[in-house]
């Protein structure tokens, strides 16, 4: 399979095993700038592993991952970390905000990791918090805000560096439907406004409905539903 024209992030033939457990067994993927792609599939099918490989968090055992003309699979850990810091953003289900830092410090964290000064970073962070309607929580600690608010803070943190790809792993998994939808709306709006691609791992159809298309992962193999039809 050749990388589709204009694709930002393309993977083919990904294989990954954790010990005897095969998580990915020849999975393919591609996403365009500004596109929201849902990764669906039953639990244990390898969705999260696919996301981790695509994001350069874990190196695949085999296969190739091309991001903007660069091969991720052969990068070393430091290069992949640098890529994640500058080009990618992340939202997880829970346990992601640093409990000791205030919300605005949490949002500013990725910028500061990139070497931005504290003042500058926190100004940008506050700006993003405003876009996700949580700027009034700036001085609070994560333990003092609700789940939905915390998740929006996390989205703000994921977008604060202006990433080209946003990886979201069950971003609404711990929220009720109202909060979950609000987070999804804000997330997709914000991503579209910056033309960021979103890789959205979810098992919920109503969350996946915020995507442009979906990919199904079953038994470590991927199935691109658009191309299959």
């Amino acid at each position, binding site marked *: 399979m050749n990388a589709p024209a204009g694709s930002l992030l393309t993977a083919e033939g990904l294989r990954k095993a954790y010990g005897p457990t095969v998580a990915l067994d020849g999975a393919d993927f591609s996403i365009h700038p500004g596109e929201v792609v*849902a990764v669906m599939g039953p639990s244990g099918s390898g969705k999260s592993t696919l996301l981790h490989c695509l994001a350069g968090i874990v190196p695949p055992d085999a296969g190739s991952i091309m991001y903007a003309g660069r091969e991720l699979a052969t990068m070393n850990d430091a290069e992949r970390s640098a890529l994640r810091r500058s080009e990618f953003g992340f939202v997880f289900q829970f346990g992601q905000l640093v409990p000791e830092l205030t919300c605005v410090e949490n949002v500013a964290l990725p910028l500061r990791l990139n070497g931005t000064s504290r003042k500058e970073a926190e100004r940008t962070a506050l700006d993003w918090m405003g876009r996700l309607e949580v700027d009034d929580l700036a001085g609070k600690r994560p333990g003092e805000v609700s789940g939905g608010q915390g998740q929006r803070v996390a989205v703000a943190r994921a977008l604060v560096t202006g990433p080209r790809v946003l990886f979201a792993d069950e971003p609404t998994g711990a929220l009720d439907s109202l909060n979950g939808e609000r987070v999804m709306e804000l997330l997709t709006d914000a991503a579209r406004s910056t033309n960021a691609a979103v890789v959205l791992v979810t098992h919920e*159809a109503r969350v996946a*409905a915020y995507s442009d298309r979906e990919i199904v992962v*079953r038994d470590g193999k991927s199935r691109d*539903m658009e191309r299959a039809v």
Partner: protein
Amino acid sequence: MSIGHTLLGLLESGPRHGYDLKRAFDEKFGHDRPLHYGQVYSTMSRLLKNGLVEVDGIEAGGGPERKRYAITDAGITDVEHWLATPEKPAEYLQSTLYTKVVLALLTHRDAGDILDSQRSEHLRSMRILTDRKRHGDLADQLICDHALFHLEADLRWLELTAARLDKLRAVVAK
């Protein structure tokens, strides 16, 4: 639910008498509504006319129910096409989907594919509803939500069925 496609699918595993067909249908899909002989008879003559089945032989003693039918190549293609085409999302879809899944298992096709394409079809509808909801007023939102929750219920059932395919395969193979 298409009785014609279902009977065709049942014939794929081998030629059968009309009476056998009715019995197999009732056993696997009839549940509370058994098929009438007349229905089988009329359906089979329509399929014969369209060239999807052929008469394999007639047993002594006469009577329409003693005819043995076999599926033709055109018939197999027709079943194939029917299974691969996702159903338009609608209420009370499950009997059709269930029939498709069971037939796929009976004819050793990949039932997971049916589920995947159906999910894709559902999601297509859900995307449209979600989009309308985001740009509409509160009334739109409430109406769309209702539809979305129904579609989601279908999909959840689909996921559950997918998770239980192995069990179902064992039951169907009996």
